[in-house]
């Protein structure tokens, strides 16, 4: 009813478009509301609450009194040796998993892009780790790494590589490399699929032209494939980096951060601070600090890539 009235009035008003625009905006908002409410309630709300907590001394306890402490949590963070140790482990983990995962996936994607027999079957097979939840992957690899009953030790023993059983996940120096291997395995499907999709968009003519000019396979890869793939590579490595530095479930199941904190990734550290020791405020600070670090790293990385692309 109101709509017809509006339309009838339109010719006579001086600024007809503004009214319609306002109305349209309002309608858009209303239509968006059902989608917006869950986002606000379940994502934005907790996020803001988390940021707020980072500036308080919130602790667990029915009789705990929370007060605003300003930046003192961030001050504690800077002098917290355990945090920096965990941060270092997190960076080693995230960088090595991302880089190795990328290299392995690129190889796999190139292979799957060739005209091989059973190609489609192999492509499906590659996706298997993706179909498993992290907890299941963790449990499975714990069995693989089991010191007495694990398949890895028995295979290596039979091959004569090791003389006695190795406790992969409890050895101070081996635990981190051991979980990095699992991390690479877990993340390969996404990376491979994305790179494969990227490879298929590279125009065939470029390769033909390269062929005509007598470029070697290596040369064609270096001068055609890589530059063409660049946007895809930038996207997938930065996404992988974010996923990896935020990894929690996998490592929680595999080692719970042990032995002696050698695999205590930053997210495990924050989890322990909050739910084991009860320092909610400080744990929130850790979370905020990580958002800042990840944003900074990504900003630098993507910014540089974009500049180079231009």
């Amino acid at each position: 009813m109101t709509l017809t009235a509006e339309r009838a009035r339109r010719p006579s008003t001086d600024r007809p478009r503004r009214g319609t625009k306002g109305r349209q905006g309002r309608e858009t908002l209303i239509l968006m509301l059902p989608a917006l409410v869950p986002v606000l309630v379940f994502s934005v709300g907790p996020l803001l609450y988390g940021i707020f907590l980072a500036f308080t001394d919130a602790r667990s306890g029915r009789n705990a009194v929370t007060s605003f402490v300003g930046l003192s949590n961030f001050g504690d963070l800077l002098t917290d040796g355990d945090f920096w140790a965990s941060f270092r482990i997190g960076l080693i983990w995230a960088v090595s998993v991302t880089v190795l995962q990328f290299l392995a996936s690129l190889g796999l994607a190139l292979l799957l892009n060739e005209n091989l027999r059973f190609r489609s079957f192999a492509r499906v097979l590659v996706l298997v780790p993706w179909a498993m939840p992290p907890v299941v992957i963790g449990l499975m690899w714990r069995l693989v790494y089991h010191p007495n009953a694990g398949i890895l030790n028995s295979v290596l023993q039979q091959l004569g590589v090791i003389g006695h059983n190795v406790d992969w996940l409890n050895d101070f120096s081996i635990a981190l490399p051991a979980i990095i291997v699992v991390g690479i395995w877990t993340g390969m499907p996404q990376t491979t699929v994305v790179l494969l999709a990227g490879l298929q968009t590279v125009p065939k003519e470029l390769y033909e032209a390269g062929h005509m000019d007598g470029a070697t396979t290596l040369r064609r890869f270096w001068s055609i494939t890589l530059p063409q793939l660049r946007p895809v590579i930038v996207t997938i490595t930065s996404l992988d980096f974010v996923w990896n530095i935020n990894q929690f479930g996998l490592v929680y199941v595999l080692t719970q951060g042990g032995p002696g904190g050698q695999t205590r990734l930053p997210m495990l550290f924050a989890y322990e601070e909050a739910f084991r020791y009860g320092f909610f405020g400080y744990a929130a600070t850790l979370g905020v600090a990580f958002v800042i670090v990840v944003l900074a790293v990504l900003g630098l990385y993507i910014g540089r890539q974009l500049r180079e692309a231009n």
Partner: protein
Amino acid sequence: MRTRTALAAAAAIVALAAGCSSAATGGGDKAGGPVTLKFLSLAWQKESIAANKQIVDEWNKSNPNTKVEYVQGSWDNVNDQLVTSFEAGDPPDVIHDDSPALAGFASRGYLADLSGKLPADLKSDIPQPAWDTVTFGDGKGGKGVYGVPFLQESQVIIANKKLLDAAKVRVPTPDQPWTWDEFAQISKKLTKDGSFGVAWPLKSPVNKVLNLGLNFGGTFFQTDGAKATVKVGPEEREVLQRIHDQLYKDKSADPSALGMGTADPLPGFYAGKYALLPAGVYLRQQVVEQAPPGFQWITIPPLKGTSTNQGATSQTLSVAADSKYPDQATKFISFFLNSANQAKLAKGDWLLPTSTKAASDPSMTTKENGWDVATASAKNLVVAPYLRVNGFDEWKSKVATPTLQQYFADKITLDQAAKTLVEEGDKVLARYTK
């Protein structure tokens, strides 16, 4: 018109989301009507789960108005799980845990104070040293009893009888135990032909070392009012040094057992690779079940330093402060832990009952499977000093575990270890007195 419908729909969604949490907490609060209690149990051995469920069934049959629902938990993550459920305001009514965890929960007000609420016969059946393991500050200057202790663990040594007989060593009794010196000599004597006298599985060294430390009066902590600090003096160093000597000086302990959990050396133990295996009394269960036929073993009573004292922690049942039916929950605990039931639970878990009546039960004093030695070792248990230390858990996982692991792996000296334990440790503990 449309606006209103959309708004109403949105409001409904929000209300629904908010309602989810409050709707789940029901459970029959009609006055006088039947109530349901949730009982979080951490029993994990088969016999023990059976015993737990059987006692719950008995209760449910004779108390139709207070139905107890058995909820299975796990030691691995129980404390994380409890913190979240306490904070959410919907904890289980009856909680199975152990005394080291209770101190923190009590000071944060999560648990109900049971002092004055427990029946007299239960109170007198359990001796005071056991009650000491559950008596903590309430975080507001007062003190309370925050659980009923029911199972305790002492550290004994499980020994290969054939190897002991062959080496002609004195078999000790609870009245005449081995001293640590004697233990060191005997371990040396038993080390020959490629086998070792003893295996120290020290993957999680902290509680073991702290409990044994009391043999020489090593408390590891000193408290000054509410403030606790770490102390590693001559008394504390005794046990650390002695174990280290066995590994690297006497070479009577197998270094490859170091990274193992308590039960991991068992296959080597059955194979005669080590003659002595220091362990909690509960490990007897696995020896009984898994040992190859004809394998002869005995339980050696706790060692003696300047005394035979060992630090004790207990498994406990507590009532959540947020429980809607604390009285019924307390009644259930009193039934669950009467002496007859405690004997069943102790047998199921191969641990020591706190109840004096249960401890005198014939099944607890039989020579079979070392029960006589195990039960007698209960008299050596005194409250472990670290139970009263707020922040012990963080000290243990961040400082003590890595430091002791490095010390026993001979990567750092005792002086370095002591320095780290104290300096880093005091920093951690300071967070809890702020």
